Every structure is written in structure tokens, then in C-alpha cells.
């Protein structure tokens, strides 16, 4: 009388609506599986096929994927935090306190954002160490290493700009010290600090500039670089298998 659940799924996937969205079809053949990746806008960056040993934990410890996962957590929690946070001197600190004590789940979102930010910095560094000590940065992957260095820079800048937003004593003095470090750059240092802060002191302009950098400019730039980073994995021949694997044919 009742059909097995798989049959409903199969019927759904054969329906006209489903096929209009996912055009690859759902057969069990390699071609269908390859098309499912290649014809999906999110997945087409990746290879349609990979050797199962490349998915082993010991090769990468999944550090790149984990970095990306924390980034996605940060984007989603960050957008929600933006709904209660005003980047202005009288309101910023109060909004941060409201998020902790009056907004439903506010403290959960703020802490998730904060801990994910710490985790992302740690994971990005760990990812780089892993890539470096596996020699996975070497040609033909040297360009992707450079993209990765930029992504490290954006991670640190996101971390730094986000640090000011609670507008408490810790963030205020951290950015005072940080912007003075920037002004130690020869010749252009003082001007750089002035443009960064939008004035001579850490004040309303600095808070707004850091907010826009943190919420708009740096995430957008990071997303573009992440896209290139993922795409280059496929273009450079997939993940690096390791020295012993590269010489398999020679033995």
C-alpha cells in the first residue's frame, strides 16, 4: 500500500520542477555524478572527481574546510548581530551589553561570533602550517599559497577591525595601540593612521570606518579571494597527495 520513502524521493527528483532546477539528472552513472557537481554553481569550483585517499583526515586534517566553516558561522552570526548594533559612540557599548543581557539569544550569537573568530584565526594559521610542512605550497600550487597569505591578512584585519566594535576600554586601547603601530611605517605611517581612523584620535569616525571595513569591505574581498582559492585547487591538480605519492609512477 505505502511506497518506500526512496520512491517518493525518486519521484520528486524526476519531477519537472526538480529537473528545471537541477538539470544534471540523478542516474547512478559517473556521468550523472560528475554533472551534478559541474552544473551546480556552488560546486562547479571543485573537481568532479577525487581519489578517496585524498579525503583521508591525515592529509589535510580538514583545516581549510574548517576555516571556511568558521567563516560561514561568522557571516551568519555577524549579520544577525548587525540588526541590534549601532556603530555610534553613544550606542555601541550599550548595544553590545543589550545583546548580552536583553536580546533573545543575543549572548549566544555574540559568543558564537567571538569564539568562531578566535577559532578562525587559529585554524587559518594551522592550515598554513599544515600546508607548509607538507610542502603543499610548491609549484604548481605556489600562486594559491600567495592567495592564502592574502586570506591570512584579511582574517587578521577582520579580527582587528571587529575588536573595536564593542567600544569598551579593551577595544579602545587595543586600537589606539594598533593604529600607533601602523603609524610607525616609514614616511606614510602618520597619514595611514589618519586615513584609517578618519581623524587624529580613536573616535566616532574610527568606529564607523572600522564597522564598514568589518561588515562590508573585508568580507566581500575575502569571499572573492576564497572563491579564487577554491577554484585554484582544481586548476592546480587537486589537493597535494604528498611526496611518496608523486613518485609512485617512477618506482
Amino acid at each position, binding site marked *: 500500500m505505502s511506497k518506500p520513502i526512496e520512491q517518493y524521493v525518486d519521484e520528486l527528483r524526476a519531477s519537472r520542477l526538480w529537473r528545471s532546477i537541477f538539470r544534471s539528472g540523478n542516474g547512478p552513472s559517473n556521468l550523472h555524478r560528475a554533472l551534478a557537481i559541474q552544473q551546480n554553481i556552488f560546486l562547479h569550483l571543485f573537481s568532479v572527481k577525487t581519489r578517496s585517499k585524498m579525503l583521508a583526515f591525515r592529509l589535510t586534517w580538514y583545516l581549510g574546510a574548517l576555516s571556511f566553516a568558521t567563516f560561514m558561522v561568522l557571516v551568519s552570526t555577524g549579520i544577525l548581530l548587525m540588526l541590534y548594533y549601532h556603530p555610534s559612540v553613544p550606542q555601541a557599548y550599550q548595544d553590545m551589553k543589550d545583546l548580552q543581557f536583553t536580546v533573545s539569544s543575543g549572548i549566544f550569537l555574540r559568543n558564537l561570533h567571538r569564539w568562531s573568530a578566535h577559532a578562525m584565526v587559529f585554524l587559518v594559521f594551522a592550515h598554513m602550517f599544515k600546508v607548509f610542512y607538507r610542502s603543499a605550497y610548491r609549484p604548481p600550487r605556489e600562486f594559491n599559497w600567495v592567495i592564502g597569505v592574502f586570506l591570512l591578512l584579511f582574517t587578521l584585519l577582520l579580527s582587528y577591525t571587529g575588536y573595536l566594535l564593542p567600544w569598551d576600554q579593551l577595544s579602545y*586601547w587595543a586600537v*589606539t*595601540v594598533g593604529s*600607533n603601530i601602523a603609524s610607525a611605517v616609514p614616511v606614510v605611517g602618520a597619514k595611514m593612521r589618519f586615513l584609517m581612523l*578618519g*581623524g*587624529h584620535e580613536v573616535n566616532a569616525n574610527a568606529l564607523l570606518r572600522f564597522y564598514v571595513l568589518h561588515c562590508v569591505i573585508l568580507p566581500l574581498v575575502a569571499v572573492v579571494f576564497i572563491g579564487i582559492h577554491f577554484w585554484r585547487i582544481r586548476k592546480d591538480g587537486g589537493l597535494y597527495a604528498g611526496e611518496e605519492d608523486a613518485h609512485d609512477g617512477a618506482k
Partner: protein
Amino acid sequence: MSDEKQNPSTTETADVLGRRQFFIRLGAGSMAIVAVGSGLFGYDFLTPRVLYEASPLVNVGKPDQYPVKSVTFDPANRIYIVREDTGFYSLSAVCTHLGCVTAWKPELDIIACPCHGSKFKKDGVKIEGPAPRPLPWLRMWMNDEGDMMVDRSSETEHRQFVQV
């Protein structure tokens, strides 16, 4: 002669700007102008023309409110008003290391920075710590109403005491 003019492939065209070359250079030149213009526009836009920051000129009041041989910290303006037997001077309270605000420690007779531990004498000279320069002396004078004024934006090299 007329045949040669009609057939450019047989003539030397190295120093003649072809139509394609001309448009490539025109396009690249326009892009370069736009790039430079955007850079200048961006720099200009990011530089505020009006700053709603506190004035560097500060009125620190009448001299008689400061006892002789005293150091007074003005936290709002981030300066010290020091009165010695010889007169007044004003020190910036902003640490020359990384910009933290220092504190006067009367029990130790020193100025100390909470961030990275620099210590200064009350004339600004560094005792120890990472600060690269002494705390600067600020220009100080008496206005016509008999109030003492400090210009926080103007550091003075030679030590001058304001006499009362």
C-alpha cells in the same frame, strides 16, 4: 610608385601607428587616467575636511589653583600641569611608545604607563621602558584674562617655564 602605396603589406610599417594600435593605446591611456583619478578621488574622499575633535588649545585656569611643587593630571585633555618653584610647564600625558595615557604616581614621584611599563620623571625624561622619546613639553602661556593656556598640538624643544 602607385602600386606600393596601395599595398601596405609590402612597405615598412614599424613606425606607423595602425588603427588597432591607436585604439589600444587610447583605451589603455583612458584606463590609466581613470585609475589615477580614482586613486586621487579616493584619497581625497577618505580625508575628512572637518574634524569634530576637541580643540588642541586648552584653558587650564588660574595659576593659584595649582600648589607649588605639584603635578596635576587633566584626564579629559590628557596633559599634566606641573608647578615648580621656577614656574609652570605642561607635559603631554600620551605615552610616546604607542599612545596610551600615562598616570602620575605621587607615591613614587614618577609618571607610569599602564600599557607597556614605560616610566618617566615628572619633567618627562624617560627612566625605563620601551618609550622611544621623553614625554614632550607643550607650549604654554598666560592669556590676557590671566588664565593659563596649553597648545596640545605644539611641542616645545627647549624647556620654558611660565612665570606667574
